[in-house]
């Protein structure tokens, strides 16, 4: 394998490979908090928190199901509790929220998220359904905190270049158009495209990653990190903190064995 590195330094910064996704208040505020407490700062780089949504169009069936349940528990003021736990571990938290909220609340919504402790926001439907808004909203968000571009293999080259130039943040690259569904793809092809388009940028890959083996492979291709979402839902449903811890360990091992 060409190179595989779970912890590597780019300039001064020590990078860790894992990004975890949780839907806020799923399966309950308490359970989610216990999982966040169990997050291992040695391997987890960022945590994404999804803001529950009645129609999370671009999420796959597993995550979609978490949203409808989470909506029942969701209280905006819980968010700060989650980011607080992560902050204490030194792990930045990023909100994942559909555009509708920005549409309603404008950049005030970004301020709210920032105040809730988030370092930035990912808006999965912005480029797909509201791309005419992006030129306006992205700079507004960037005034407040980080806008994390969300690209996938369907994002046109022109759009990738234009949007990524509006921000200096890391980039979220979905390997598939929708998460949680096994669509076959050629990992190497898909990765090379974004790495070639945006040399030198921190690009984290997500969507449809199922096994620790895949994690190793993705990192070996040059990605800066790997986002895991649907895979965690089973642990949450089973309140299987132990399983969750073992999963984080196994990622460390993958990295160690390859180093």
């Amino acid at each position: 394998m060409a190179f595989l590195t779970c912890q590597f330094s780019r300039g001064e910064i020590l990078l860790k490979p894992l990004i975890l996704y949780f839907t806020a208040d799923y399966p309950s505020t308490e359970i989610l908090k216990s999982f966040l407490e169990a997050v291992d700062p040695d391997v987890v780089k960022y945590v994404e928190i999804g803001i529950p949504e009645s129609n999370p169009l671009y999420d796959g069936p597993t995550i979609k199901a978490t949203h409808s349940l989470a909506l029942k528990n969701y209280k905006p003021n819980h968010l700060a509790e989650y980011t607080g736990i992560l902050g204490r571990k030194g792990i930045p938290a990023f909100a994942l929220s559909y555009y509708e909220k920005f549409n309603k609340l404008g950049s005030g919504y970004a301020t709210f998220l920032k105040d809730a402790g988030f370092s930035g926001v990912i808006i999965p439907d912005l480029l797909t359904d509201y791309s005419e808004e992006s030129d306006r909203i992205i700079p507004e968000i960037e005034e407040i905190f980080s806008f994390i571009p969300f690209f996938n293999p369907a994002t046109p080259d022109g759009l990738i270049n234009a949007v990524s130039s509006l921000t200096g943040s890391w980039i979220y690259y979905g390997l598939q158009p929708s998460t949680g569904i096994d669509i076959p793809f050629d990992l190497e092809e898909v990765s090379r495209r974004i790495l070639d388009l945006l040399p030198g940028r921190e690009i984290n890959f997500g969507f449809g990653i199922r096994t620790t083996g895949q994690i190793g492979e993705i990192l070996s291709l040059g990605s800066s990190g790997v986002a895991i979402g649907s895979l965690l839902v089973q642990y949450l449903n089973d309140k299987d903190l132990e399983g969750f811890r073992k999963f984080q360990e196994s990622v460390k091992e993958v990295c160690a064995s390859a180093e």
Partner: protein
Amino acid sequence: MGKIMLSTQDTAIIPREWYNVVPDLPKQLPPPVDRDEKNSSIQLLNQILPKTILKQEFTFQRYTKIPEEVQEIYAQIGRPTPLFRAHGLEKALDYHGKILIKYEGATITGSHKINTAIPQAFYARDEGSTGVVTETGAGQWGTATTVAASLAGITSKIFMVKVSFNQKPLRKEIMELYGGEIVPSPSMETEFGRQLLAKVPEHPGTLGIAISEAVEYALEHDLKYMLGSVFNSVLTHQSVIGLESEKQLEILGEEPDVMIGCVGGGSNFGGFVFPLMKKFKETKIFASTASEVPKFTKGEYKYDYVDTAKTLPSIKMYTLGSDFVPEKIYAGGLRYHGAAPSISMLVNSGRIKSSDVTEDQVIDALKLFARTQGIVAAPESGHAIATAIEYVKANRDSKETILVNVSGHGLLDMSIFQR
């Protein structure tokens, strides 16, 4: 001799890679989505489509290598198809610009459908399938499927809308001749069909029902399902039309000012226009549709089901509603309620203009084309020709070069003239 046939049927012109427009679209293509939390229709695709097709559907490489074997079969089925100057039509219209025709009717099955049927059948075979299944309405898609399957050495089973099955015995004949097994739908061969027939024994069938039966049959018998249009992978395969045209125009030293094609699901149109749009950025582009199925002018741009039966995913497109029941127009291939997402996006953005033409306009266009060019075009393609004629009449002095894709011949659909 003047350069009247602008094509050289030189296999060197057959492209070696398909072109996928998605990375070059101005905006991000909205992906197919599931509407049903329980049964993922995208997961369903996973089970019934060859892996390679799924890959092509969901990962967006600008260029995909066309397998050697498929390139060879492309030659065998009549690729490259001709691109010629329609002197006769120009003269009849007293037009002083140029009208160029790319003619997909010159393939052995008489339409562009074979361009995607071949790779789909070959991928299915390569992945170990013993056969493919699909539905057909008018019959063009079913015909292409049976040929492709036979050439790949696997079986094909076609669920044909019962009313068409009864009205078009020749279509059944040709598909059987090509080695396909044709079943009128609804049939007793699927649970879905049996239930329907129990309720309505004389059910005439619909395309939606036929799709559901084909999908169920593929699942039950571990066969692959073939996609006829609308899907991005299909448009990618059809890019051979535009890529060939590009080389042919180059040989000729021509540049189109206007490009026109007809839109059913959008596969011939997208396959034709997209590769050329990349090179000829300033061309005017017209998507021709039937007045009876005014998807772009009366439809809405939104997520909607691909099929009436809601078996396949939802996609964002111009749609008249997946339960839209079109008038019984002769151009069966244009009765589809929606259009491919990439085309819909560009119609929405204004890059592609649309043009609705009436049945009378189409019949006149087909007659004029037959008498001046000697070609009996398919009724679907007649729309593109009618739009071109309309354009010429409105822009008589422009001297523009108009490039029209004629997606098929109409030799098996001539009953439309019997009125």
